[in-house]
């Protein structure tokens, strides 16, 4: 064991010195390799962070959302349904929710109007709490400038802005307008006792399926969306976008593998001479292969490390500026949010598999070819 370790140490030592001697050639290789790792790692970290964000956000939403359907389209749900749902055993709380979209013809943006679930906001009629994106879209001259909007009936309504949401919740609140229930009903001209949908909290997660079954019997016209359904959809969406990026990058990986194979097989005269001398002084094929594997390993390690670290900085310090349009989507009011750093072992293992393995595979045959050449042949 000790002998083996010592041999590997000398080989690594020798290889590092050899790499340093051909600095220009190897730097070029490492730079290109790092760029490949960087592109893939950025895409993967970005979508993993989005997935993580979606999961965290959804953790606070009710376990089940019930929507009324008429001819397959979403319709307002009457308040009488709340009691039906509350009667089902295992349901902890049922709450009618009021929210809707409003198209602002002034700037072409869509706002989300909502009555807060939480009574602690204690909004009075005429008051509103705004998301930070709305002030920007409306060019507010000061933070709590009053918001004037024209309701569908053509009435101009003024809301005094009590406060603006802080930037750190932008993902959820960028386009949000919180108003009181009375304002909401008069603004959208809604009859009393109807709701957009109903949020149902369920105490035991394993009972959700049974509760949905029971509720379907009571409310045959309703659509039931569970939190895990929404979570799954988001997961799948981000996975798919990430997979698409990876598949596109596959062309780059392939080109890089060809480049690496080419580079490894086209031995420079100096390298060939070096291998010839090594073999002449008693190295056997296995030693030369081990040396070359060390070379590939060190290059891979350096490039993998550099690519991953730069991708981390790119995604979590610069919000992935380069890939944002592809992975995030767009809108008039777009939340400006910082992602919470989130990496797991699966990501790193996957990244390793799709970058280091093609490189290694591409260089193995050239390595062997170089190592088995006769010393007199290469030196001549």
């Amino acid at each position: 064991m000790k002998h083996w370790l010592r041999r590997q140490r000398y080989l690594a030592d020798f290889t590092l010195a050899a790499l340093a001697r051909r600095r220009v050639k190897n730097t070029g290789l490492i730079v290109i390799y790092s760029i490949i790792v960087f592109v893939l790692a950025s895409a993967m970290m970005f979508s993993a962070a989005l997935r993580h964000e979606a999961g965290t956000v959804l953790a606070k939403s009710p376990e089940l959302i019930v929507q009324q359907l008429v001819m397959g389209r979403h319709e307002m749900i009457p308040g009488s349904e709340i009691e039906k749902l509350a009667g089902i055993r295992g349901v902890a709380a049922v709450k009618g929710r009021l929210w809707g979209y409003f198209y602002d013809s002034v700037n072409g943006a869509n706002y989300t109007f909502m009555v807060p679930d939480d009574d602690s906001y204690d909004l009075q009629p005429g008051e509103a709490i705004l998301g930070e994106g709305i002030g920007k879209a409306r060019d507010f001259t000061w933070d709590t400038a009053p918001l004037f909007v024209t309701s569908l009936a053509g009435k101009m309504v003024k809301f005094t802005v009590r406060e603006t949401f802080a930037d750190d919740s932008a993902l959820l609140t960028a386009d949000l307008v919180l108003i009181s229930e009375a304002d909401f009903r008069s603004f959208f001209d809604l009859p009393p006792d109807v709701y957009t949908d109903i949020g149902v909290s369920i105490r035991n997660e394993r009972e959700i399926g049974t509760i949905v079954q029971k509720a379907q019997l009571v409310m045959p016209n309703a659509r039931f969306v569970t939190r895990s359904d929404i979570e799954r959809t988001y997961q799948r969406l981000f996975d798919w976008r990430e997979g698409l990026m990876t598949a596109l990058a596959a062309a780059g990986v392939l080109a890089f593998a060809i480049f690496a194979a080419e580079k490894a097989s086209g031995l420079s005269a100096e390298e060939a001479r070096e291998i010839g001398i090594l073999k002449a002084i008693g190295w056997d094929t296995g030693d030369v292969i081990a040396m070359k594997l060390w070379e590939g390993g060190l290059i891979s390690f350096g490039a993998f490390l550099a690519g991953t670290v730069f991708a981390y900085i790119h995604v979590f310090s610069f919000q992935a500026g380069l890939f944002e349009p592809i992975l995030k989507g767009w809108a008039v009011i777009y939340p400006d949010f910082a992602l919470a750093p989130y990496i797991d072992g699966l990501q790193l293992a996957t990244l390793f598999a799709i970058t280091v393995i093609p490189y290694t595979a591409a260089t193995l045959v050239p390595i062997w070819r170089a190592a088995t050449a006769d010393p007199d042949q290469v030196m001549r």
Partner: protein
Amino acid sequence: MIFQTPILALLLISALSSVVMLWAGWFALRLLLRWDLASGSRAQLEMERATDLVSTLFGFVMLAQLLSLLLYVFNADRMATLFVGAMCAVGTLNNNDWGFPTLYAKLAIFFVATMWLILDRADRTGHDYPLTRVKFALVLLIVPLVLAAGASELTYFLNLQADVITSCCSTEFTADTEDAGLGSDMSSLAPATALWLLAASGAAVALIGAVSLIWKRGTMLFAAAGAVFFVVALTAIISVISPYVYEHPTHHCPFCILKPEYNYFGYVLYVPLFLGTAFALGAGLLQPFRKVESLAATLPARIRKQVALSLASFVVFGLVVLWTIWQSQLILFG
């Protein structure tokens, strides 16, 4: 579903391994037909050189497959959120008929490829490559295994259905389910029996290993004991060790222990067990060749080293098990 980065990575590994193995198989066929060390012909010299390439490629395939095994289980665990009813890797693997066969094939490749590399290293110490034919005959057996694993993996991923209601580990590894499979048989074994069996087979392995180390006999028996110990240990993990990790008397899943919630504890448990078994099998594999002339000087020492490594790995496994039971808040006995 195939557009997921880990799945793309797994398919890439399978495709590369299959290409490499197809070439290795073709080379093995030529070698078995024409290998003649006495000949100095060009073809023979080229073949001797190419054996180096095959060894290197094999090492590469084995490392890639090891990574793919970890990635496969890890990915199955993460994808569980995408399927109704699945809560860990078991649910994902049960999504269609190909999930578990792929896992078993990957495990088999891990063991067989390790065996091959052990044989290869031994062969290289002899000046006349005495085991070359055996080695390449074995390659012909491994090729179909790698191809089958690749095909099974592809079928599995292509047929993943999001709307199939799959089963959770709590139903799969429960003592008295209706559709009793191997999993439920293993978990229905009484915890005390499982622990006694584990202790007894552990003691047997240690004893036979000691005999093999001191008196240099019984190595084949040691390999067999190692294999038996592997099966007993897996049964014990499902029946009694997992509940200790979860601190929950009815949660038997052998996959959940790999999750971050349990600090990836499963890896500490599985890695020494797998290594110990691989070394034990390797020792048994080398045993018949210790009389080969060019290996007679080095092979017995090499075999003893394998036995020692195997015993050391099993001891680590045993210590991990004892530690698990000692620090767990769960009281199953007394």
